[in-house]
């Protein structure tokens, strides 16, 4: 099954500084008490925003931002897909960071939220640039693996196959996994604990 092709993401950006920002902070657990993902966008970083009135997600100058810039190990902790869902529903379409937790990156990919990485120096520079001029438009090109802002470009990293999945619209895994179901049956038949000891 083919899904939306994702290649160019253009828009203003928002910065959340700090390493190891865990998914409990991105979306506190009480908002997981629901049977849909609807409305999660309203509660993104809710507790951090309450504790810090100047939190970027509360700052109107960042309204409408589509690219989130973060530091190291973003999205650590709980495996809740609600974290990338909340960001996406708020309006974020791509995250640019020094590094991401693995589960977060996988969950983000599963919903078509692109996570690309860049060096510490590049991130520091981007963060300052966006904070100084929040209205600047950034353009992320997955094809070129380049982020362009204010006429200058920086290199970003995304593994080729993941990038291709987004570009070709094959990032929704279920279709891919069901493509050749006989092979799955074959594995089930050879695994001793399923076949029976």
């Amino acid at each position: 099954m083919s899904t939306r092709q994702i290649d160019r993401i253009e828009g203003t950006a928002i910065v959340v500084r700090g390493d190891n920002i865990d998914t409990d902070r991105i979306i506190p657990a009480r908002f997981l008490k629901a049977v849909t993902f609807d409305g999660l966008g309203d509660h993104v970083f809710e507790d951090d925003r309450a504790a810090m009135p100047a939190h970027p997600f509360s700052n109107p100058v960042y309204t409408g931002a589509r690219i989130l810039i973060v530091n190291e190990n973003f999205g650590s902790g709980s495996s809740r897909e609600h974290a990338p869902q909340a960001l996406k529903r708020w309006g974020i379409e791509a995250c640019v960071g020094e590094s991401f937790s693995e589960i977060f990156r996988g969950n983000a990919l599963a919903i078509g939220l692109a996570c690309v990485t860049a060096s510490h120096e590049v991130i520091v520079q981007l963060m300052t640039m966006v904070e100084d001029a929040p209205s600047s438009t950034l353009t992320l090109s997955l094809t070129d693996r380049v982020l362009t802002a204010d006429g200058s470009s920086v290199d970003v990293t995304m593994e080729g196959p993941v990038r291709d999945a987004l570009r070709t619209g094959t990032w929704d895994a279920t279709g891919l996994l069901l493509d050749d179901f006989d092979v799955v049956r074959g594995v089930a038949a050879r695994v001793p604990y399923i076949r029976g000891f």
Partner: protein
Amino acid sequence: MGKTLLKKVWDLHTVRPLSTGQTQLFIGLHLIHEVTTPQAFDMLRARDTGVAFPHRTFATTDHIIPTLDQTRPFADPLAEAMLSALEKNCDEFGIPFWNLDSDRQGIVHVIGPELGLTQPGMTIACGDSHTSTHGALGAVALGIGTSQVRDVLASQSLAIDPLKVRRIAVNGSLVPGVFAKDVILEIINRMGVKGGVGQAYEYGGTTIDRMSIDERLTVCNMSIEGGARVGYVNPDDTTFDYLRGRPFAPEGDAFERAVNWWRSMASDADADYDDVVEIDATTIEPRVTWGINPGQSVGVSERIPSAASGDNGAVAEALDFMGLTGGAPIKGTRIDVAFVGSCTNSRLSDLREAARVVEGRSVAQHVTALAVPGSQSVRVAAEREGLDQVFRNAGFEWRGAGCSMCLAMNPDRLDGDQVCASSSNRNFKGRQGSPTGRTLLMSPAMVAAAAVAGEVTDVRDAVS
């Protein structure tokens, strides 16, 4: 060069390489609960897809259930809606479900091993990051998100990136009063909370070899807190003895054949690791976290670190949130709440250690203390030994099985900026239900000692 358990399990379960560069990995056992699944079932319906192997998925309920009054409908309509959704979904798709009225209900990571569902050489997935727990029996167990729960339901497989293997060899005897919890807190402190990203942690060495399965479960449980997707211990006689006679374990001759296969899945003596780390267990102290991630811990006799240049403001942010002072001893930190429970430390052995400390003593007057068994079967076994009475006599509340105060999804939660000595696994800001609530992670025995003293204290003094 020999192979690691991870490599053997991976090869056996590989369906095919995917065009995304990932591997399609067959999942032998899928465990589900009420929080991360309702949307997954809705996605299945939207696609008009069924559940591929309904008998390889098992459900329980743990996160949202009250541990006190479980009358239906629950007082919280949102919790009620979640449990109802799981009931309906399991019913519709033919998935076995241990609901509140079952003596098999409990925290998903407690019941899997306890029922013998979790076995060596398996691939296991669950929509919960602490799925790494099941690696204690030599399984490759992966925490996944909701879209991946949908994938496993639909195809009994996952698209997943390959993992490297780091062997963590822990050698030597633990001194009395030091537990598996302290070992894993030490490991995370040393390797960092993102040290394990992209890796599976294989725990070995004489300390791990001598551990019971309960202790290994505690160690593997917190692998994810060190960034590792997977943590495991190679299966050995301790594993096989644990599994013999459990409801889902093979029986009779089949069990012996299973043991042979399980043994063959352990890492070879000359296995090729990406990285090996050695840890001396003899110097590990009871540990306590002082910060806002599980890597921020010190030995109980040590001082809380001070902010330093180069830490990116992380220490200052943590101290500010925790209301603690850099350079002060961690011992003597006043607590308001004590929580013995969670998938890290709510098994019978954990309750015994905590009960041993509180027996004949009383919880400090200003402290609210909770003991919450991880499963109904743990609760029954503990009550048979009279542990519930020991806890109650000391002033603890004795509750029904569930996640309870580990996270903010049921009525058990911190109020305001209360400080909680907790045997759970996460001290993130707001984790225990109050945005300003503060968590100090430690072993169940240390929680018990803190409950009695009303402050962080060294359990080695408390019981000597």
